[in-house]
């Protein structure tokens, strides 16, 4: 019974994630990608970082590593899988989730707190929130602009697959509140199943009370069910 936090060369939010999960009394362990998923894996986190130095495209190399076949099998059997930041890029690169995260509109690395509006509160990741609730998470990325073709985005929105959108403190998804130029301000999406999700903001960085905000706990609690 353990949540596997998969380490690739260049992952750097892996230990933060284990610590945040441990704080919520959720058993989690670091799993080096070459070792494969433990037999008792009950959840998978693809953590943030710069796997393989972001070579080619952020997440492109990690998405093609052998462990991702195991992650896909786990996801297909209903195991919760969460990709955070670089993990979100890996999730989209490996087609676990739709779309792509590419260079910020500013062409700069951005490290700041952002407001997010909960778009769908009927998922394991958001059931502790209300639909339309505004939460505050940090972002830290250079390639977080969500891109997808318009038709596919319409489908995602019609199917309620958008999990979070960037917004202002009143919950309005304005262009000014969109830090990276993401299409329709999308900050996180679901995969084919509700149990698979990716997001660019970092819930694990707002989960320990000593740090201040704890909005991120709501997302990570999905692994405790």
């Amino acid at each position, binding site marked *: 019974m353990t949540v596997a936090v998969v380490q690739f060369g260049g992952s750097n939010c892996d230990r933060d994630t284990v610590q945040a999960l441990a704080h919520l009394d959720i058993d989690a362990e670091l799993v080096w990608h070459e070792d494969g998923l433990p037999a008792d894996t009950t959840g998978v986190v693809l953590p943030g970082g710069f796997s393989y130095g972001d070579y080619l495209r952020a997440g492109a190399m990690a998405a*093609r590593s052998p462990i991702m076949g195991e992650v896909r099998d786990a996801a297909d059997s209903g195991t919760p899988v969460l990709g955070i930041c670089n993990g979100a890029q890996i999730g989209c690169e490996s087609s676990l989730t739709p779309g792509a995260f590419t260079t910020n509109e500013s062409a700069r690395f951005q490290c700041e707190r952002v407001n997010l509006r909960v778009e769908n509160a009927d998922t394991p990741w958001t059931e502790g929130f209300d639909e339309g609730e505004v939460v505050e998470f940090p972002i830290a990325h250079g390639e977080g602009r969500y891109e997808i073709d318009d038709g596919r985005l319409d489908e995602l929105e019609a199917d309620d697959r958008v999990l979070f959108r960037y917004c202002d403190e009143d919950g309005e998804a304005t262009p000014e509140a969109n830090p990276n130029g993401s299409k329709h301000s999308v900050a996180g999406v679901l995969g084919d199943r509700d149990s698979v999700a990716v997001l660019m903001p970092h819930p694990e960085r707002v989960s320990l009370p000593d740090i201040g905000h704890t909005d991120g706990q709501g997302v990570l609690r999905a692994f405790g069910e």
Partner: protein
Amino acid sequence: MTPYTATVEVRLKHGVLDPEAETTGRALERLGFELEDLRAADLFEVDLDAESAEDAAERAGEMAERLLANPTIHDYEVTVEER
């Protein structure tokens, strides 16, 4: 088997914003150059041995599909020359 070089050019689909290219264009303007627009692309040259140019192109195309390009945001073009 014949030695070929397959060239795979990967570029953003029309309409997908390219902030790096925009920044590069602006930097050229700051240097005093006049330009209307600037587009950037990635170029991969793959040396491989194949039965035919078609075979080489097919394999390079598969490389583009599976890794070199991201079909969500990229188009790609393959050309093959004997090496």
